[in-house]
């Protein structure tokens, strides 16, 4: 029996197709297309340059931040350099953060840090990749500075009353990375093993690092 005959035609169309999201030519979408086509026509950039940039942006992920955190867990001197100057510490282990001014904050037994950008959606993309949709939502942005303990609890992260919450509102030229607490039971782990416990959300501060 051929593959086609396995399928009931009605079954294939049971779900309506998701509408395209690129079908509305808004003002800024038209402007982006016009500027891009002009730059390509004039030989300033090529279509392949544009594609390559998009590929690079999509290729960045939280593994970069996790590498920094795992290194900090293993190397106290590195952690101190990182807390003093995050951008330099990133460069030190071969992570290009571009013009980003990185501030690294550390969770301890007395302080829990969490990042938000109330004005827009500033995010350390060079270290964590593209931000999750909820990070850009009005709900998260307005409530995290107003009732952080309630918002964290909705993420499943309940912070004890004797631990201070420190919310960082990323309003200007700095970008932030949280070093979560190192899980117990990881005493002899390698950097690569530790890095696997460091999730994106734990570096935003809405979660803890994965337990062993």
């Amino acid at each position, binding site marked *: 029996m051929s593959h086609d005959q396995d399928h009931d035609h009605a079954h294939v169309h049971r779900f309506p197709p998701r509408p395209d999201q690129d079908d509305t030519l808004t003002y800024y979408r038209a402007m982006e297309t016009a500027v891009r086509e002009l730059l390509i026509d004039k030989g300033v950039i090529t279509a392949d340059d544009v594609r390559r940039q998009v590929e690079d942006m999509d290729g960045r992920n939280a593994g970069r931040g996790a590498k920094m955190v795992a290194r900090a867990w293993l190397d106290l001197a590195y952690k101190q350099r990182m807390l003093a100057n995050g951008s330099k510490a990133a460069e030190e282990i071969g992570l290009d953060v571009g013009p980003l001014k990185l501030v690294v904050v550390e969770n301890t037994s007395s302080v829990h840090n969490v990042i938000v950008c109330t004005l827009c959606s500033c995010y350390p993309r060079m270290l964590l990749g593209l931000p999750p949709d909820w990070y850009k939502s009005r709900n998260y942005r307005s409530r995290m500075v107003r009732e952080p303990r309630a918002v964290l609890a909705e993420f499943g992260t309940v912070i004890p009353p004797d631990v201070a919450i420190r919310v960082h509102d990323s309003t*200007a030229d700095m970008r932030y990375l949280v070093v979560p607490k190192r899980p117990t039971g990881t005493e002899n782990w390698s950097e690569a093993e530790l890095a696997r416990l460091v999730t994106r959300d734990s570096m935003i501060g809405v979660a803890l690092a994965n337990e062993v």
Partner: protein
Amino acid sequence: MPDAVAHRFQIGDRVKVREAYPIGHVRTPYYVRGKCGVIERVCGAFPNPEELAYAREGRPAQPLYRVRFLQRELWTDYAGQPVDVVEVEIYQHWLEAEGPQP
């Protein structure tokens, strides 16, 4: 014209955010305007975003600070713990010196 305005505040200084509502692109959130906090760190000087947004140079650059606010000073009905804080980046031209905490 100098490249950057000299910085006026040091770590630990108490400051008050100007309570002003100018039109245009402003990066000082509403919820801290008129509120007092403490300088947590000096971040350096950056071109003024209120000028950059309109294709100007933003020079001289404005010193930028991280200011720490007690949640209870921002929200009278704050439901968390008294030790909870918010830290916000604020440019110098939005800050005024404030006396010691009463």
